[in-house]
Structure formats: structure tokens, C-alpha cells
């Protein structure tokens, strides 16, 4: 059920300011793609256009096409809410709903949409999602406790469980480990490797070791200067990007000469 993503000449604007320019990229199903690049280069902005989350900000607009298995999510008449139910997202800081228990957090995608289900089915989804997020063994005895009582890494895996509970086609991750300690980071990275079997995953990261550990392909974004738009510089297999990049600025970035 995972799908491919393809951007064609995609520009992102905030008001009249061009934030990201001319992105062309094709992401295959059941792969992990990492977005790397210096701060402010538009990689998070581009990630958020992939499930129309950037529209939450006022005045953000997009030109060009973004195809989810050949279906343009920016075609007129497309409901952004439907797009988001197919393209899930995990955020930089773990954000479980503080008013909900762990179980309700996992089921949030259904509960918040007013979908009712039997207890057996709810339990099954909870268990499957938490197992999918490698969290089941840690929380199975306290499903009715608040989600905010978990540690940071557990909270982030809870957010992943919440995302996979609704069985999206694609999972976007915006620096999912930047607020976590090394052990929790390792747990989440392991999880990403397992999730790849079922989902298309795109991950933004500042950590190049992480990019090389978890991703199949890597996209390098860069920005020419303040006020200039961010651009996709190079997109290739991760091994190639980190060993033998074809663009000079990519090599400068990954060898630590700037950024």
C-alpha cells in the first residue's frame, strides 16, 4: 500500500517570498529517503508540502505538481485533510496529546475523526501499532496512563505508533530524533529500518551519520544566501552521496567544510 512520491517543478512561497525553488524528485515506495542540508535551506518546508501541512501557516502557497502515485495532491478539488490521512507526519519534538491516555493517543486518528469501533478492534489496533513502534512491551501495562508521562524517546515512538495506526501510505519525519538522547535515537532509527518494509519514509535530519545509517537515498538541499530560495542540489543513493558526490557543494557539506 505504500506509494511513490514525485515532485515536478515545485516552488513553495510564503506570501511573495520564494522559499523553495524548482524541486524535481522521485521517491520510490518502501524506501527511506533522507533530506540533508544547512539550516534554512528549505528541506523542512519542502517536507511539509508533501502532506500539505505547510498550508497551516498563513499565506503559504505552492506552484508545480506533487504526485502521490501519479495523483496530484495539489490538483483543484483535492481535500488537504484527505491527503494528510494518506501521508502521515512525525514531528521534531514528541507531541502526544496531553489530555489523552496512551491508548487514546494511539487511536487518536480514529477518535478525533469521530470513527467508532468495537473494543476488540480498538485493542487490536492499539497493540499492532504499539508493536509496530517497538513500544508495546514498555507500555502494555499502563495503556490508560497519560501519554505525557513517558520519556522523550517513548513519547516519540508513541507519536510514530499514532501515525501508523491510521495506516498511511507515506510517513514524513521532521528531525524526529533531534530532541532525543542517543539511546532513544537508536531505538527510533531501528524502528525506521523496520517500518521501511511497509511504508515510504522521508526523513529530514541534521545528523549525517543518521542519514547514512537509515536511508537508501539522500537528497541534499542548499541555499545560495539569505533571502535566496532553497534548492535541491543533488539526489542519489546514500552510499554515493557520502562517498562520491557529483556536486562540489555536497562534498563540502558532508565533509564539514560548511553548514
Amino acid at each position, binding site marked *: 500500500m505504500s506509494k511513490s512520491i514525485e515532485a515536478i517543478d515545485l516552488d513553495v512561497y510564503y506570501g511573495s517570498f520564494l522559499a523553495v525553488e524548482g524541486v524535481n524528485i522521485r521517491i520510490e515506495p518502501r524506501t527511506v529517503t533522507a533530506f540533508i542540508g544547512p539550516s534554512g535551506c528549505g528541506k523542512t518546508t519542502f517536507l511539509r508540502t508533501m502532506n500539505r501541512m505547510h498550508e497551516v501557516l498563513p499565506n503559504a502557497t505552492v506552484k508545480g505538481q506533487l504526485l502521490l502515485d501519479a495523483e496530484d495532491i495539489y490538483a483543484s478539488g483535492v481535500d488537504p485533510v484527505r491527503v494528510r*490521512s494518506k501521508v502521515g507526519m512525525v514531528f521534531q519534538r514528541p507531541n502526544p496529546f496531553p489530555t*489523552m*491516555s496512551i491508548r487514546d493517543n494511539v487511536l487518536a486518528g480514529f477518535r478525533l475523526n469521530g*470513527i467508532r*469501533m*468495537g*473494543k476488540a*478492534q480498538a485493542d487490536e489496533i492499539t497493540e499492532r501499532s504499539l508493536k509496530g513502534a517497538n513500544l508495546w512491551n514498555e507500555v502494555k501495562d499502563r495503556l490508560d496512563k497519560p501519554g505525557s508521562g513517558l520519556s522523550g524517546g517513548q513519547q516519540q515512538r508513541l507519536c510514530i505508533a499514532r501515525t501508523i*495506526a491510521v495506516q498511511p501510505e507515506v510517513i514524513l519525519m521532521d528531525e524526529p530524533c533531534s530532541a532525543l538522547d542517543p539511546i532513544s535515537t537508536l531505538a527510533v532509527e531501528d524502528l525506521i529500518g523496520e517500518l521501511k518494509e511497509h511504508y515510504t519514509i522521508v526523513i529530514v535530519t541534521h545528523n549525517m551519520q543518521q542519514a547514512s545509517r537509515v536511508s537508501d537515498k539522500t537528497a541534499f538541499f542548499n541555499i545560495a544566501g539569505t533571502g535566496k530560495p532553497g534548492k535541491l542540489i543533488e539526489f542519489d543513493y546514500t552510499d554515493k552521496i557520502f562517498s562520491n558526490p557529483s556536486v562540489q557543494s555536497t562534498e563540502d557539506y558532508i565533509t564539514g567544510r560548511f553548514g
Partner: protein
Amino acid sequence: MSQTETRGSAVAQTTDTEQPPVDAPAGVPLDNRSGRFGDRLFSGISLAAGIVILVVLAGVAAFLIRDAIPAVVASPEELDRDTSFWGYVGPLVAGSVVASLIAILVATPVGVGIALFISHYAPKRLAQPLGYVIDLLAAIPSVVYGAWGALVFGAALVPGYAWLSEHLSFIPIFGPTHSTTGRTLLTAALVLAVMVLPIITSLCRELFLQTPKLHEEAALALGATRWEMIKAAVFPFARAGIVSAVMLGLGRALGETMAVALVLSPGPLTASLISTGNSTIPAEIALGFSEAFGIRRSELIAAGLVLFVITLVVNVLARLVVARYKDFSGAN
């Protein structure tokens, strides 16, 4: 507690419903048309509520103006008195303004003092309970202050008034005679001062507590005493806020009805603050409205409109001061 409740209701909700279609977990609803309708409906209701507020305010203005006009344009004969409407409302405005200004003059230094005491002088453990006490002072209904002012405070001030009229009666405000009940404009003004005190105090206290610690410590590190630190760091930071707190207090004092209506035995405008006489717009309306019909009713509504305009000007000025100085306050 709340967690178990949440769970309980979720269980109760799910047990009654039949099993959903098998493929339900595979997706959040595909047909989202109803959802979109919900969005539109909800944002429509929210917008409507906001517009209702504008309509209500426009309504306040429109109804009051409509009902006030007959009195404003009426001749003295129609009003059954020897002046026009403006001659009638003028002394009331004067009474309102004098009482409120005295209240503010008394309340401002004391209020700022209390705020400073709580924020910078009192022991840390005391500061929070003291804040609560001030908030409680603000919560006491005005009619209670009015009763206290009329029956207790006014009577307690009579010896003071006697002394003033005996020794200082050459000053017009301490008039030739004094009230024997203490129900005078000065008493009313002092009761108003007690009532606006908590407003000024709580606004100032919040401001003083927000003073950047860095500025304070910089001043102290240079060997400043506590007072010098307050002068150098706290007051410049809070100046605009203090001004606006005082203006808000003034607006409140101008509009306060019951304290004045209960304390004052109203009468014509006099210069003396300690003898019977004078009145304010709100007190005049409160005391007269229930027996007012026709043109008299219209007259009182017109007086209310005048009060509205005065308080509006004071409040807008307060906000302008805040907006003007916001950029310079050094707050982030």
C-alpha cells in the same frame, strides 16, 4: 481520575455500536464531504459570534443615542428645569470627574507602593498570598463597598471633617460647614480609591515582576541600593504600564455606580468636598431611573451616553499609551 473517566466513557461508547466494516482501520474516512461541511459550519459560527459582538456594541451606541436625542435637543421648559440638558449634565460630569480624580490621586501612590512591596520588598513566601489577598479585594462587589462607605467609613471620617472645617475652612474645598453623616463627595472619592486600588496594584505588580532580572542585577552589581535599583531598572521598564493601569483605574472609578449612589447624599454642585451636595452621573442614573418616564428617562440615558463617551476616551487613551510605549519597554 480524569483518565479513568475518559476510558470509561470510551468503553461505554464502543460497546453499544455494532462492529464497523472490516476495512475500517485501513483508512480514515474516504468520504469527507460531511467533514468539509462541518469545517465550514464551525468557522461560520465562530465568525458570526465575533460579528455579534460588533453588532451588540453598535446596538449599545445606537439605542442609547436614539433614546438620548429627545433630551439633548429639548428646551428647558420641556425638561421642566431652568437649564438645557447640558446645564443639567455639566455639574454631574464635574462631580464624576472630581471624585474619580481624587480617587486616582490617592490610589496611585498607594497602589504602586503595594505593588512594589509585593514584588520587591515582601519575603518571597509572603508575596503570593498577598497577591491573592489583593485579588480578593478586587472581587468584593461594589455594593458592599458602598454599604461599608455609607455606614462605617463615612461615620468614621466625620471627626476629621469637623477638624478640617474648623481649621481649614478658608480653603473652598473644605467648605464652611461639614456633613454630620460623612456622606460627602470626599468620602465617595476615598471609597472609590479603595475600590480601584486592587486594579492598579494587580496590574503594576505583574509589570514589576516582569522587569528583566538582568537589568535589576546589573543595577545591584553597580552598588545601587534597592531603591536606586527600582528607580533605574523597574520604573523605566514599567512606566507605560503604570500609566495605563492608572487610566484603567480612572475609567473604572468614573463608571462606578453603587459606591457613590450609596455613600453620597446627592445635591447641587458645590465647591466643598466635605458638605452635603454634588453627585455623579452613574449615581444620578441609579437613583433616578426607576421613577423616570418620558423625557426624564431620555435625559438619564443621555447622561449615561456622556459617561460612556468619557470612559471610552479614557480607555482608548490608556491603550494608546501602552501601544506607543510597547516598543520601548525593553520587554521581549
